[in-house]
């Protein structure tokens, strides 16, 4: 293949990838967009093999086959609720691959002879650094989302100082790479130094982010893995890799910004763990308040409280807990009553709904309400779930048509005129404290105006604060509120029964 054809092919494929991404921004064309991106990437592989004349290197194919089998199995088996951690994991693998490519080119193995050794050395080290930060950051993120690691931000003494120090060291190593030339010992120093420090940095920066902010971290890491690819492409002199890596890096960054804006918080605050309650003392205090709350409300020994202590995530309903019965019969009846009479209902699903696997029951309830003549809408907070858009995916899985789903801005003014707001496993995104409690980490985050609805029904596992650790004043409200505590499935089933 001649050089000119190669350039033209790269240009066409870059445009195809861009087209694919832009098609993915509309529901109707998204599937086609994804396919276009996938086909372009496949053609990119073919072109690379042909242009570099390496088709005869047969070892390539078993390696790829192994990757295809593993990747295919992961894609086919993963549950929708586990999507965020899978994306994080895959993303980390991409970063890892870039770091390996960077390592090889720094060692001068497997790259064509270059006229620009300085450029290759610097980009190689950068590829290792960005790739490994992506890998270890993603692993921590996936671990937090999969609950292998604590959800709360882990803050060390002098955390910021350590991170800044790492950054300076990484910068120094990158500069150092400009001078290593082809001295084996200096190359070894650059290689080992960049591997150790960037791995540590990846862990150190991700571990300080709270579980609720992981989506944004993943999105940022996603962008980083694109950048890592592009830099690796510079190191091995691969035009297509540079172009596509750049595209992914930039659009990933934009997506990160969009998410930050939705949560009305700075990227910096998120990365420094400022957006979650970190002091354990405060956590205990809120717990006591919540406990007292339940006791006064129910006057019976509340099962959720004894359970709550062992639950890793407060405020939402972990699955596989069936004992808690709905307390307070009158409240339950009222909730059914409210729903039976409501002409308009807005359902606010949260991650708790997904944990309780209650999305199908929610769909049934919505159908029943519609059959009763009520207008039903779903209000989706931009960060509902563990990833932006995650809730939409989960509801789509339960056959809720996407034109019943409304984004926060589209539906928020309607709560005032709505007969009933039904909250299922959501907490922080409906917490009115975000509007006026200036000293809380969620202050300023836009929330759904659930509190303005004529009646509010909340099906949460317990009354503990959500991910952010901020107590929800709605729970203390005396009137127009119906709390159905316990597993969302049980609560919804009893509502469904009540409505027939």
């Amino acid at each position, binding site marked *: 293949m001649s050089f000119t054809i190669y350039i033209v092919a790269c240009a066409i494929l870059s445009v195809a990838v*861009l087209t*694919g*991404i832009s098609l*993915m*921004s509309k529901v109707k064309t*998204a599937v086609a*967009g*994804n396919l276009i*991106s*996938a086909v372009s*990437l496949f053609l990119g592989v073919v072109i690379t*093999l042909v242009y*570099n004349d*390496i088709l005869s*290197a047969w070892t390539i194919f078993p*390696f790829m086959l*192994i*990757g295809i089998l*593993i*990747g*295919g199995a*992961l*894609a086919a088996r993963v549950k*929708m609720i586990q999507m965020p951690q899978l994306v994080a994991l*895959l993303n980390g*693998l991409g970063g890892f*691959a*870039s770091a*390996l490519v960077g390592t*090889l080119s720094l060692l001068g*193995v*497997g790259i064509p002879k270059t006229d620009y050794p300085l450029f290759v050395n610097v980009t190689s080290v950068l590829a290792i650094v960005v790739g490994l930060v992506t890998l270890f950051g993603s692993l921590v993120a996936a671990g937090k989302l999969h609950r292998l690691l604590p959800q709360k931000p882990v803050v060390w003494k002098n955390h910021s100082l350590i991170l800044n120090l790492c950054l300076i060291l990484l910068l120094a190593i990158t500069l150092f790479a400009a001078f290593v030339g082809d001295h084996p010992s200096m190359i070894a120093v650059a290689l080992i130094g960049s591997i150790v420090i960037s791995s540590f940095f990846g862990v150190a920066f991700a571990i300080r982010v709270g579980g609720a902010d992981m989506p944004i971290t993943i999105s940022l890491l*996603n962008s980083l*893995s694109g950048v890592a690819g592009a830099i690796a*492409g*510079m190191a091995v002199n*691969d*035009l*297509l890799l*540079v172009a*596509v890596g*750049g595209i*992914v890096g*930039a659009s990933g*960054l*934009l*997506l990160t910004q969009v998410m930050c804006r*939705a949560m009305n918080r700075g990227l910096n605050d998120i990365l420094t763990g400022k957006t979650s309650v970190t002091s354990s003392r405060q956590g205990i205090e809120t717990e006591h308040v919540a406990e007292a709350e339940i006791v006064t409300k129910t006057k019976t020994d509340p099962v959720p409280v004894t359970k709550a202590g062992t639950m890793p995530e407060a405020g939402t309903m972990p699955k596989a807990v069936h004992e808690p019965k709905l307390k307070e019969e009158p409240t339950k009846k009222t909730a059914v009553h409210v729903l039976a009479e409501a002409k308009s209902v807005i359902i606010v699903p949260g991650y708790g709904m997904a944990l309780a696997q209650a999305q199908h029951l929610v769909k049934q309830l919505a159908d029943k309400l519609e059959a009763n003549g009520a207008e039903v809408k779903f209000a989706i907070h931009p960060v509902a779930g563990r*990833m*932006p*858009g995650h809730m939409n*995916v989960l509801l*789509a*899985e339960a056959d*809720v*048509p*996407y034109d*019943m*789903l409304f*984004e926060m801005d589209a539906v928020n003014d309607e709560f005032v005129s709505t007969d009933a707001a039904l909250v299922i496993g959501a907490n922080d995104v409906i917490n009115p404290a975000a509007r006026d409690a200036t000293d809380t980490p969620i202050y300023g985050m836009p929330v759904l105006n659930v509190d303005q609805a004529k009646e509010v029904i909340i099906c949460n596992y317990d009354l503990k604060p959500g991910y952010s650790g901020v107590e929800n004043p709605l729970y203390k409200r005396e009137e127009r509120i119906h709390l159905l505590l316990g597993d969302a499935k049980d609560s919804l089933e009893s509502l469904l029964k009540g409505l027939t």
Partner: protein
Amino acid sequence: MHPIVLLLVFVVATVVGYLIIKQVPSLLHTPLMSGMNALSGITLLGALTAVGFTFLASSRGELILGQILGGIAIIAATVNVVGGFGVTHRMLKMFDKKKGPTS
């Protein structure tokens, strides 16, 4: 290729990429993120050339190193690509099949 050209391509790609996804509804953020995640496995191309070149032209030591590190890179990147596009497709299919009563 001259480094300046590569840097230029990177900058242009970055700017264009930035402009192109400005109007994505949050409904699609998860699929889009996972789709772009799959694309970031493009680093597969770099891994392919590394394995290919060491296979064809290297001394014994380089051959082994290139095959091991490069091979792992190919596997990791392929898992990223195939897994990424696979789950994205699954997610998008779920949006696609819905033609609910209200539509």
